[in-house]
């Protein structure tokens, strides 16, 4: 069963004077039930916008987002509200995602109240259960968000997301605002919940190390498009796209705290999403780019297994050599 199926999702924003920001430009992926799907990319790659569109917190310009059998991009009113039970969001900044004027117990109970789940007493019991599940004490229910630390707040955010027994949780960089020590706690909590409840995650991050810890499948986004997708093992042991290689080379090794191999440093910035280049969007920063790359856009092509890459030169010897050099020293999935 597929928990979430996204087909050719596009999210465009008007930028004034008739210009359009192509934040997400034709993204497709499937998340099988009970798995975690990591969407990685740098700032501005459109990963968060894609995730918010999946939870219908941003309206999609085109494409389909199927949650189970229903396409939620066209639902309205009560039907959408019912669908929201099945897809919940954990936000990036735990200091901004909890209403400062509400007691945390009420915050966690709110989804149940709004969706009229059970009796008030049952809701209260469920809140106690959720607090225990995420590692908080039920007697902390009456406190306000400002009385908690960042990690505790993120636990409250997770408890809120779990309240309605969702099938899929969109995690929008849930640990990037936390200390490293706390990051591990939250990631372990998410991993435990996934195993215990059979949850599926759409996990957004700019940090490959974080994704490596939790995700079964990974897609790398660059400027609104997926450039490579595959299982965790495929991505980490045989990255096909030069951009993925550059990202992996930047993951610090656990032993030294430094990059495990010589880092592939990218020059310059991504091009503007208002006027993306006609060919490969990465061509301007790619060391292997040819004239062909900057003229013709590569399409995402399967290379075996679940692995797919959008690069004209992925199979060329020059790129393969770089891949081998990288994989020798890199941490394996």
């Amino acid at each position, binding site marked *: 069963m597929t928990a979430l199926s996204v087909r050719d999702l596009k999210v465009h924003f008007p930028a004034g004077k008739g210009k359009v920001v192509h934040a997400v430009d034709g993204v497709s992926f499937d998340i099988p039930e009970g798995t975690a799907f990591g969407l990685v990319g740098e700032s501005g790659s459109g990963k968060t916008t894609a995730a918010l569109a999946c939870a219908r917190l941003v309206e999609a310009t085109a494409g389909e987002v199927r949650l189970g059998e229903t396409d939620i991009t066209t639902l309205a009113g009560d039907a959408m509200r019912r669908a*929201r*039970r099945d897809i919940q969001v954990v*936000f990036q900044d735990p200091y901004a995602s909890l*209403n400062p*004027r509400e007691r945390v117990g009420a915050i966690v109970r709110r989804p149940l109240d709004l969706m009229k789940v059970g009796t008030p007493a049952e809701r209260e019991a469920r809140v106690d259960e959720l607090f225990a599940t995420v590692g908080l004490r039920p007697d902390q229910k009456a*406190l*306000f968000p*400002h009385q908690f630390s960042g990690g505790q707040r993120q636990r409250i955010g997770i408890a809120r997301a779990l309240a309605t027994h969702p099938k899929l949780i969109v995690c929008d960089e849930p640990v990037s605002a936390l200390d490293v020590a706390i990051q591990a706690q939250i990631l372990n909590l998410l991993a435990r919940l996934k195993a215990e409840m059979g949850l599926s995650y759409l996990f957004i991050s700019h940090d490959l190390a974080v994704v490596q810890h939790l995700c079964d499948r990974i897609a790398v986004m660059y400027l609104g498009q997926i450039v490579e997708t595959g299982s965790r093992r495929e991505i980490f042991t045989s990255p096909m796209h030069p951009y993925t290689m550059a990202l992996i080379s930047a993951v610090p090794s656990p032993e030294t705290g430094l990059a495990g191999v010589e880092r592939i440093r990218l020059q310059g910035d991504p091009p503007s999403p208002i006027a993306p280049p006609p060919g490969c969007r990465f061509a301007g920063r790619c060391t292997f780019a040819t004239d062909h790359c900057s003229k013709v856009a590569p399409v995402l092509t399967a290379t075996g297994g679940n692995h797919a890459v959008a690069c004209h030169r992925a199979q060329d010897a020059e790129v393969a050599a770089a891949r081998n050099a990288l994989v020798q020293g890199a941490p394996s999935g």
Partner: protein
Amino acid sequence: MTLVEPSRARTAPPPPKAVSPGRQVWQMFRRNHSAMAGLFILLAIILISLVGPSLYTVNPREMVWMPLTPPGQSEYVLGTDYLGRDLLAGLINGGRVTITIGVFAAVLTVLIGVTVGAMAGFFGGRVDNLLMRVTEFFQVLPNLLFAMVVVMLFGPTLVNISVAIGIVSWTSTARLTRAEFLRIREMDYVKAERSIGAGNARLIWKVILPNAAPPLIVVAALSIGSAILFEAGLSFLGLSDPNAMSWGRMIGDNRPYILDSSWGVTFPGLAIFLTVLAISLVGDGLNDAINPKLRQRQ
């Protein structure tokens, strides 16, 4: 810090105590001496206005002594006005009307301002554009003149005067509310509410408004003061309810005799001054208590 005895330290910690945002504000406010002074003056004025008329029973409309008697020269300690009415009785009875108009006009100001600002800030786009043009229209009208026209057209009753003041003074509240809504509607907790199925009405009134409330409370408090001043201004120009005794009306009535009997305008003027000052102190205190960081930066 006192040392905890080993035997006690081993027992379970007491359940944590909830500190609500409102309680924090009150704790900050209580430490602010000038704000507390303002609060006491204000409470005293309200108390006098409420119970004063039944303790000091002189009729403020009746001629009780020689006209224009200076203070301290009769049993009417603050003297009399040009009709021989007791000024002290006027002050005690006028407080009710003045404060009622101030509060009523401020409530109206906040109601209109918050509604317009909330709609503009939340929905944005065309709604925002339209509402902001309306707001600008009201901003460019000369306040006093517009209020005078309204009062003259509909008659100088208490309700009409309050409504006129409310209609001319809601614009800054609307702008402030809009700015707060623009800021807060992008917060993650608003997105989170939406993702758990909250509708627009809930987002506006139950989620964003409570978080936008702190600066609005300050503005609401201060607008009571400015409404009282506005009422005094209208009365000074002769636009007051002839059936209601207010401080502003006392000043307006005694205005022609200001050179012969300054006390006729001085005492009601002082009463207005004291009330507005107290309200300002409370408003500033609230502002500091609500935004403690703002104060540290100064």
